[in-house]
């Protein structure tokens, strides 16, 4: 790489705060440029005289760099460090240059200078605001087939990233006594006052350096020191204090309820080779006792014909480029202003050697001191004049100047035009905090009024424009005092909002309000003419204020023009809502740590590693990974499941049931509580016995189910479904705490205390028994549905005899840290006897063969215990339980409810699809009358035919009926049957 970038012709020696010794280089549209460390892409390009950097959204007009901050609507670039770290729509005005940065212009084809899309500009008269609502309607499908794709391709700005993002993002919850937003003069004063008072202070600023407006300063002095240096000193002082956290490059983008403010800290985007562990961005969620908003003000453009050419720039931006970056934005500069502050820019540039061809001031009588100084510097001021047009394609070449009250036009050659329509206080965050704004008619601005939270606005965001006043106000906001002597601070007096001369009613010029979305003054007037009388309608119809700058420069202009068209006062027309974020924030910042494995917890049982080693395929059940099936060799899922079922029914199977929810219910009122929560009666359940329980909500629909063991008179071991565990415990606590607070019963989740190893099959007892101590496992001593406490492999166990397969079954509960060891011991014995591990799919098959329901599969929140064929589980003599009244409602006792039945296909080899719909008459036309659906359906290896469960209208009365399942290409005939397909007498439960 011997190529040396050309010298930066517009860099002014001796100006700015950047060190000329520290140079870096970057590329823009493939061309290499030099820059100084601390440059933004914008300042570096301007240093090379590059103004054309982008194309507008709709008309594809050439656009330059308008501002020096986050309000930039035009200079949006694609910025990359490498192939995967590419970011579209980056503001050139805020992106710091780093060595090797790759910047590319957007929304143009084939190139920035020659953009075919610019043809839109020539036909702009056919594309007024809202034109798309009025056409593209014929023929009927043409919109989406023909027009929409064209519009879509033309719209959009940059290109979305296509590769997964290799960068990391972080989050921090923080608390402080005082959060200061904005590190300009008022904010620094507030932070220091707060810090000196011993408060925990966080102060953030969106720029790399603290100082705010003072960074653009050249002449102002604070206490005899240049204002920029004063800011540095203040920041240094704060940095040295232990109770202060300074966050540069950090934007406060949202203000929430109860003084929570969200900040986006950009950590690595300015670095050439950041530490790979360092997060790219960090979200700060700061809860502050008090918030000081020192967010400053944003300069507005003036609305006149062709006010959008490259080289047209905010005056304050030009001043910052000169005084901070040492860049002159032009050599022959025009100024068009209605505000004093532009004079400072003109004077500084004149002193730095640029020619100020004229200051065109829309006002009749600007401050005489300014005029005198202009005179001293030889700068011509045209008062009561207007700029009514510009020329120049890739860069402004001339401006047309007219006296305000005559039509005498004069064309003046320029290479840059500085504009200033006054300042808009940045009340965004204050408004987001739900503070009220009040209109200050004298100065044409909305100012913070009554706060809604413990926050206070200081400095220019509060309309306090004089520097000494802003500093004093800042300090006072933090309970301190600051009296400084300020000399030669610029005045911010004067404003012009709405259309300037030549862009008013009746004109057809393109005077841009919203640059990026190409909204002009006449678009606003068209919207009003068409009946859009609310400012929200105007905004939506014209899209003004909806571009990536969210109307920071345009909103007040749009409002003023709409007000004029409506013949109303600005406050009557109202202000559109300020919505978060203040400036765009990456999704990554919001997502931060929650990516990949941290997107959501992955819960694994103590035996997970064994299952993994033994080839299990897992399924997601809530947060859990559950072993789904254990294929051997080349087995597919069906083959594996068939083998697992067959082996379990012939010999034994081992199953990890640890994910089931478990709740220990303890206390003298435990029985009463169980009676309330479950439909079943519990008084007569003996200690040491288990019962299957059904839980409803008050509406009478099945909510959960599970086996409950009585460990003692006042102690129950309750199991729930895997997914239902948290909500069941929550519902139980709710009743206990709020409806029956006097009951002496307590609930503790023990879901994860116990690992659960289910062993089912004829040899289950034989496999386990030798490992168990202290429990008589014989059929007589430990009948089906009982629970015993003892030890297994030397560790404590709650051993339950129960079965979800229909075979002799035991569930071994052991403390979770022993789960894997005990599993290994049981497996070691069982394997020798021919036992298989089985997964959830085989479990589902075997329970369906027995007609046992899965809550959430065979029930869906609209199924009562009666519907599910579980009427036996409702205590007939009970006078209360949760759901008792809901079950008695008219529709729940009506005939024709969907009831759970079994289905057998006429062709035993056809396995129905779960979710398939059932009809009585297969020959009816669509829409068909559906009378039910298949809830569970499997191939049953042990029975040699398919089985299914279904919810069918009046199903319990339809035994033996033939129904039909119409599929896309065939209709399947089925017979309604009892859902217990296998071993209906239950003999196998005893092995």
């Amino acid at each position, binding site marked *: 790489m011997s190529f040396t970038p050309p010298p930066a012709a517009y860099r002014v020696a001796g100006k700015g705060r950047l060190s000329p010794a520290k140079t870096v280089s970057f590329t823009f549209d493939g061309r290499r440029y030099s820059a100084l460390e601390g440059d933004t892409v914008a300042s570096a390009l301007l240093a090379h005289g590059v103004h054309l950097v982008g194309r507008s959204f709709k008309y594809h007009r050439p656009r330059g760099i308008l501002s020096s901050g986050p309000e930039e609507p035009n200079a949006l670039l694609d910025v990359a460090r490498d192939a995967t770290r590419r970011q579209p729509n980056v503001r050139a005005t805020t992106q710091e240059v780093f060595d090797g940065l790759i910047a590319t212009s957007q929304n143009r084809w084939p190139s920035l200078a020659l953009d075919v899309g610019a043809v839109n500009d020539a036909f702009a008269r056919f594309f007024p605001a809202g034109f798309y609502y009025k056409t593209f309607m014929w023929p009927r499908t043409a919109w989406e087939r023909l027009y929409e794709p064209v519009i879509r391709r033309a719209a959009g700005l940059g290109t979305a990233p296509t590769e997964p993002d290799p960068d990391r993002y972080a989050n921090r919850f923080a608390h402080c006594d005082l959060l200061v937003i904005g590190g300009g003069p008022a904010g620094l004063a507030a932070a220091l006052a707060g810090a000196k008072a011993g408060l925990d202070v966080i102060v953030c600023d969106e720029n790399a350096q603290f100082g705010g407006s003072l960074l653009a300063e050249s002449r102002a002095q604070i206490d005899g020191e240049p204002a920029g240096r004063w800011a540095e000193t203040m920041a240094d002082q704060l940095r040295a204090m232990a109770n202060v956290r300074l966050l540069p490059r950090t934007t406060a983008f949202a203000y929430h*309820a109860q003084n929570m403010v969200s900040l986006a800290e950009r950590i690595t985007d300015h670095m050439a080779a950041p530490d790979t562990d360092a997060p790219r961005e960090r979200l700060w969620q700061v809860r502050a006792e008090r918030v000081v908003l020192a967010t400053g003000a944003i300069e507005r453009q003036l609305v006149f014909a062709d006010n959008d050419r490259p080289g047209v720039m905010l005056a304050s931006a030009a001043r910052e480029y000169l005084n901070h970056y040492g860049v002159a934005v032009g050599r022959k500069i025009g100024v068009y202003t209605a505000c004093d502050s532009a004079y400072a820019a003109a004077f500084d540039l004149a002193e730095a050697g640029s020619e100020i061809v004229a200051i065109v001031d829309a006002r009749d009588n600007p401050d005489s001191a300014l005029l005198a100084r202009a005179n001293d510097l030889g700068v011509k001021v045209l008062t009561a004049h207007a700029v009514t047009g510009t020329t120049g394609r890739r860069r402004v070449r001339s401006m047309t100047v007219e006296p305000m009250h005559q039509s005498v036009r004069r064309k003046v050659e320029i290479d840059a035009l500085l504009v200033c329509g006054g300042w808009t206080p940045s009340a965004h965050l204050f408004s987001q905090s739900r503070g009220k704004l009040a209109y200050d008619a004298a100065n044409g601005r909305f100012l913070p009024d*009554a706060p*809604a939270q413990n926050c206070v606005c200081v400095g220019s965001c509060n309309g306090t424009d004089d520097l000494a006043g802003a500093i004093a106000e800042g300090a006072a906001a933090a309970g301190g005092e600051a009296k400084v002597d300020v000399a030669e601070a610029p005045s911010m007096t004067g404003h012009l909002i709405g259309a300037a001369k030549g862009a008013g009613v009746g004109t057809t010029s393109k005077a841009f309000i919203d640059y990026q979305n190409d909204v002009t003054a006449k678009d606003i007037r068209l919207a009003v003419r068409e009946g859009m009388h609310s400012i929200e309608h105007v905004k939506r119809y014209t899209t003004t204020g909806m571009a990536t700058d969210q109307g920071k420069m345009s909103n007040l202009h749009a409002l003023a023009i709409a007000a004029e068209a409506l013949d109303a006062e600005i406050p009557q027309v109202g202000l559109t809502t300020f919505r978060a974020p203040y400036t765009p924030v990456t999704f990554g910042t919001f997502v931060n740590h929650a990516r990949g494995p941290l997107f959501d917890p992955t819960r694994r049982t103590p035996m997970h590693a064994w299952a993994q080693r033994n080839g299990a395929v897992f399924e997601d059940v809530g947060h859990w990974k559950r072993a789904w099936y254990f294929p051997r060799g080349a087995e597919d899922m069906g083959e594996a499941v068939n083998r697992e079922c067959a082996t379990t029914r012939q010999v034994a199977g081992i199953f990890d049931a640890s994910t089931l929810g478990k709740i220990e219910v303890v206390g003298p009122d435990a029985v009463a509580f169980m009676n309330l929560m479950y439909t079943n009666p519990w008084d007569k359940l003996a200690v040491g016995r288990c019962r299957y329980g059904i839980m409803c909500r*008050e509406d009478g629909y099945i909510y959960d189910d599970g086996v409950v063991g009585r460990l003692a008179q006042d102690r129950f071991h309750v199991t729930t479904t895997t997914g239902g565990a948290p909500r069941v415990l*929550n519902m139980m606590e*709710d009743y206990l705490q*709020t409806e029956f607070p006097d009951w002496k019963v307590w609930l503790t989740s023990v879901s994860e205390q116990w690992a659960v190893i289910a062993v089912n099959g004829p040899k289950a007892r034989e496999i386990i028994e030798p490992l168990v101590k202290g429990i008589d496992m014989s059929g007589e001593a430990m009948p089906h549905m009982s629970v015993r406490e003892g030890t297994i492999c030397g560790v404590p166990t709650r051993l339950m005899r129960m079965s979800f397969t229909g075979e002799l079954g035991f569930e071994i509960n052991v403390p979770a840290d022993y789960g894997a060891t005990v599993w290994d011991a049981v497996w070691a014995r069982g394997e020798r006897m021919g036992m298989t591990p089985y997964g959830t799919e085989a479990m589902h098959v075997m329970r369906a063969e027995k007609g046992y329901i899965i809550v959430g599969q065979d029930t869906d929140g609209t199924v009562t215990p009666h519907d599910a064929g579980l009427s036996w589980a409702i205590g007939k003599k009970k006078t209360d339980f949760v759901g008792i009244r809901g079950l008695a409602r008219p529709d729940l006792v009506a005939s024709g409810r969907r009831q759970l039945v079994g289905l057998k296909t006429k062709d035993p080899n056809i396995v129905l699809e779960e979710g398939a719909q059932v009809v009585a008459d297969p020959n009816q036309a669509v829409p068909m009358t559906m009378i039910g659906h298949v809830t569970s359906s499997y191939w049953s290896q042990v029975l040699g035919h398919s089985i299914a469960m279904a919810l069918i209208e009046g199903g319990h009365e339809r035994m033996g009926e033939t129904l039909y399942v119409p599929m896309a290409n065939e209709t399947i005939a089925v017979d309604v049957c009892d859902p217990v397909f296998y071993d209906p007498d239950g003999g196998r439960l005893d092995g």
Partner: protein
Amino acid sequence: MLLIRCPYCEEERPELEFAGAGEAHIARPANMSDISDEDFEAFFFIRENQKGIVFERWRHIHGCGRFFNAARHSVSDKFIVTYKAGEPKPELTDEQIAAVAGATGKSGK
């Protein structure tokens, strides 16, 4: 994200520790099986849904685990008071309501 004062923990905690639990002061009828369909509808389905002061239940589910009640303004989302489950619905003063109704923070300029 709201900040909610838990009356049991006696301090404000972030909303992430809490679960909303619906309208407060809807007592489960003691004679549940005897009430009419209309009464059941009112108990289980009908809600005040006030625009203004709402009385609502929260559970400090990831904190002390207790259910409690709150009075909150449903336009400003500001809390007036939180109180323990079982305590009667508090009488709110006009000042209390005014204080949470709009843009009248506890400090100004």
